[in-house]
């Protein structure tokens, strides 16, 4: 490398400009505003271009990070995005929602000094610029193979399988239960973190490359896995996510005004209820809102409630701040917007008014004991510390489980004891020949990029299967 001087000492990590908290409380527009080219170049110049870059090990789809960062530094922005596209079809999404602090940036050597390269921000910059300037992915496509693959579920796992198989010359059809493709990217993650236009554009470009998308098709009901084979599909990938909401199972939970985060966020995002009555689906607008749970989903729910005009929004969590599973940046954003944290607190029952609407919640204080199986200190209720809080809307965001709709209707599909599909972690193969699975339906709720990584591995294995010599399409069925 030419410059041996330690550029990292010259300037700190370049932060991304954001909408002011007071302003963004009032709208659903994106909070971080993106780098200018100058900012991106400056941030990229800090990268040490490590010979064996540890950052890449932290990226489940193995983007050549030093290479694309170097191209940004050289202001070759269109080449930078092409470098990213080699490994990742959804960079505008990942740059925004990947938990970089535990993935790529968590491994960056500069992290030791507390200033890892802002890889996510740079990835987002390159992707947004490409979108603005209409740069398209024109990577050469393989000859048509004549093979057809059915993909069930249009979340990040399914979309990745589709993109990878299209590039290898196979025909793909995606079957999606909802009326819009994108999975959690459209129904769960709010507009202010991931504009839906970005997801729609990515899906459109996949369609341009030849993917067929069949919405409103519930596999297991409208059509079964066996019937897909009968229709001549040579392989099937199942990426149906982990969309079964969990409840607390405490008294009063069915009062009006108590919703799962899935319901609340689906109303807001997929059905655009935040624009009611312009859109037809209503959403409860609470004055005093409580969100139970402390992951990304809880933060998204709380920040949605702020934007829908709540006076107070409180996160109730039974452990302490250190154990909160949400990304630090999201907790920070939520607090900036006025969300309060009620930590070491657990709900014990909900209180209703005479019309059956939620009016309050009885809670108990907790203290932390010995570490449990997850390695986190176990919360223990403090006797006699019960207290009540007033609330008129409660959102339950304590996690999701495996939705049994497809798995229950598919004979011979092996599940683990939590109802997730048993699949080979390297290939995604399931107990049924010709059926692969990946993403949240295999691992339980994880991340966008992990679902994409699983999709990539499955696509590779499906491709090998389809091109293996001496195989006729018929022999792949069940």
């Amino acid at each position, binding site marked *: 490398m030419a410059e041996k001087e330690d550029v990292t000492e010259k300037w700190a990590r370049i932060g991304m400009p954001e909408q002011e908290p007071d302003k963004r409380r009032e709208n659903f527009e994106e909070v971080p505003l993106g780098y200018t080219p100058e900012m991106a170049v400056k941030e990229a110049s800090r990268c040490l271009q490590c010979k064996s870059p540890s950052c890449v090990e932290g990226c489940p789809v193995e983007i050549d990070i030093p290479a694309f960062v170097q191209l940004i530094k050289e202001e070759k922005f269109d080449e930078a995005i092409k470098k990213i596209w080699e490994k990742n079809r959804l960079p505008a999404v990942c740059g925004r929602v990947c938990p970089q602090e535990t993935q790529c940036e968590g491994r960056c050597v500069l992290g030791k000094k507390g200033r890892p390269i802002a890889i996510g921000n740079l990835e987002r910059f390159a992707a947004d610029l490409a979108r603005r300037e209409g740069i398209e992915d024109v990577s050469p496509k393989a000859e048509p193979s004549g093979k057809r693959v059915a993909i069930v579920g249009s979340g990040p796992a399914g979309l990745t399988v589709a993109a990878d198989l299209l590039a290898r010359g196979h025909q793909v059809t995606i079957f999606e*239960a*909802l*009326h819009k493709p994108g999975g959690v990217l459209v*129904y769960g993650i709010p507009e202010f973190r991931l504009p839906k236009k970005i997801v729609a554009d990515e899906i459109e470009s996949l369609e341009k490359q030849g993917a067929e998308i069949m*919405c*409103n*098709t*519930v596999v297991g*009901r*409208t*059509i079964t896995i066996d019937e897909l084979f009968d229709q001549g599909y040579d392989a099937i990938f199942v990426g149906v996510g982990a*969309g*079964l*909401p969990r*409840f607390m*199972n405490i008294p009063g*939970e*069915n*009062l*009006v*005004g108590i*919703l*799962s985060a*899935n*319901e609340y966020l*689906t*109303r807001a995002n997929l*059905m*655009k209820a935040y624009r*009611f*009555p*312009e*859109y*037809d*689906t*209503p959403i*409860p607008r609470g004055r005093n809102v409580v969100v139970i749970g402390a992951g990304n989903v809880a933060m998204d729910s709380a920040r949605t409630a702020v934007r829908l005009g709540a006076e107070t929004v409180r996160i109730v969590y039974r452990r302490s701040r250190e154990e909160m599973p949400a990304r630090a940046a999201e907790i920070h954003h939520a607090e900036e917007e006025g969300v309060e944290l009620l930590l070491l607190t657990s709900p014990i029952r909900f209180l209703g008014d005479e*019309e*059956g*609407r939620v009016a309050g919640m009885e809670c108990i204080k907790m203290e932390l004991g010995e570490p449990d199986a997850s390695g986190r200190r176990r919360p223990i209720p403090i006797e006699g510390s019960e207290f009540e809080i007033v609330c008129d809307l409660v959102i339950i965001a304590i996690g999701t489980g495996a*939705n*049994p*709709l497809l798995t229950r209707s598919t004979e011979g599909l092996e599940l683990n004891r939590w109802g997730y599909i048993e699949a080979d972690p390297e290939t995604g193969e399931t107990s049924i020949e010709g059926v692969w699975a990946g993403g949240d339906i295999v691992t339980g709720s994880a991340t966008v990029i992990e679902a994409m990584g699983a999709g990539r591995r499955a696509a590779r294995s499906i491709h090998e299967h389809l091109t293996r010599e001496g195989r006729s399409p018929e022999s792949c069925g069940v």
Partner: protein
Amino acid sequence: MASGNVILNEIEAPLIAKKAKPGQFVILKAGERGERIPLTMAEADPERGTITVIYKVVGKSTELFKNLREGDSYQDAVGPLGQPTHLERVGNVTCVGGGTGVAVLYPITRGLKGAGNRVISIIGARTADRIILEEEMKSVSDELFVCTDDGSRGHHGFVTEILKKVLEEETLNLAVAVGPVLMMKLVSEMTRPYDVKTIVSLNPIMIDGTGMCGGCRVLVDGENKFACVDGPEFDGHKVDFDQLIQRLGAYESEERESSMAHRCRLDR
């Protein structure tokens, strides 16, 4: 076909028509900004590739549906959803329907008759011109009683009054009730002392219809069930109807606002 604010639509949906069984429903959405609305399939014709829904116009979305003209299309239709009715030969069956619930009851009744049961049907409505599917119900029942609240047709009074007589006179093996929640509750309470198994079809507010949101949860035998996946039919003796009534009213003020906004736009 049906009169006033009860509408019948035949919808082209070959994939759904091929799979539909009595008791199952579809979710329809009129346009880009529309709500997802669950409606039971009154009929499905796999040959023609069509399904038929019968619904009452009660608010903004059903109003939008009503204004679709022949050849127009729903933007989205998904199904078949829910568990099909368990159709078997049990002997004497009564099928009780109120209001538009009869649209949901009809395919179930037809199925039960087809399975070889003796079927006594009781249908009711507020007034004569609100009675729907009378001919159809007659054709699949051994006996049909019609009731109206105002006496303008058939028995002057509620369906439960006829049911009481039937319970006293016959040995029933199964009762099916579909209609307003209060009616289903009363029917279930009446059959309980006679120990007649009673199936009700519940209509909680739904969004996705695939078990993803939990909005359709109903308390059955002290346990939460998702009506869209586990139901919509449940054992009436185990359902917490009072809770269902409360939950159905969750969006009353918003629904009024939505209808008002819709009408204002139409007026302009």
